[in-house]
């Protein structure tokens, strides 16, 4: 039951090696930097120190309570992340699979639209555009 914000990479396998002991179902999601058809070399991720940690912790607790998760983990990186690098991960553990899946999707929907992170594209020419929010991400929240 923890949330971390860091610049360092993480090892998903190591993170969940001792995750959710006793649970029957563990779901993970990881987000990776896409190359967008070769256009990108990296993403630069900015966040709001202080608020970010509080927000992630709040969303983790919300998910645990709502879906009866026995464990949850959120890791989100910031700074410069090269194409192919892991940006973030969530993991959820529960007795049965439905709760673990729903908990992970719920966390992702909240993270995408309510956690204070902003992505900027880095191309061969240097820093480029800030990534626009996607309307479907905002819509996804309304299902919970």
């Amino acid at each position, binding site marked *: 039951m923890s949330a971390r914000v860091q610049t360092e990479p993480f090892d998903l396998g190591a993170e969940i090696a001792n995750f959710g002991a006793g649970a029957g179902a563990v779901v993970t999601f990881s987000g990776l930097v896409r190359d967008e058809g070769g256009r990108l070399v990296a993403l630069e991720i900015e966040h709001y120190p202080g608020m970010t940690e509080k927000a992630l912790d709040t969303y983790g607790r919300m998910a645990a309570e709502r879906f009866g998760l026995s464990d949850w983990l959120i890791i989100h990186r910031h700074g410069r992340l090269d194409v192919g690098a892991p940006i973030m991960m969530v993991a959820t553990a529960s007795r049965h699979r439905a709760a673990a899946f729903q908990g992970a999707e719920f966390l992702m929907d909240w993270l995408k639209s309510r*956690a*204070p992170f902003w992505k900027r594209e880095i191309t061969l020419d240097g820093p480029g555009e800030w990534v626009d929010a996607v309307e479907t991400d905002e819509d996804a929240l309304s299902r919970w």
Partner: protein
Amino acid sequence: MVVDVLYFAWLRERIGQPRERIETEAATVRDLVDQLAAMDDWHAAALSDLSAVRVAIDQELADLDARIAGAREIAFFPPMTGG
């Protein structure tokens, strides 16, 4: 009252600084936006389209009509794009 006003992402870039200390009599976030936008062209440009601006009061998301009495830190930023 005195508040720390923070800017992130392209709002930070357009305004040209990540934070500033502001003396204000504003009652709501919207009042504070009006005061900031009147400061100079950079503030005015960055805050011209409020549909693209999100707000947090003391690190909690809030809306433009939220009252700011007692707030220490008010942040303006674009819609979030984490995950």
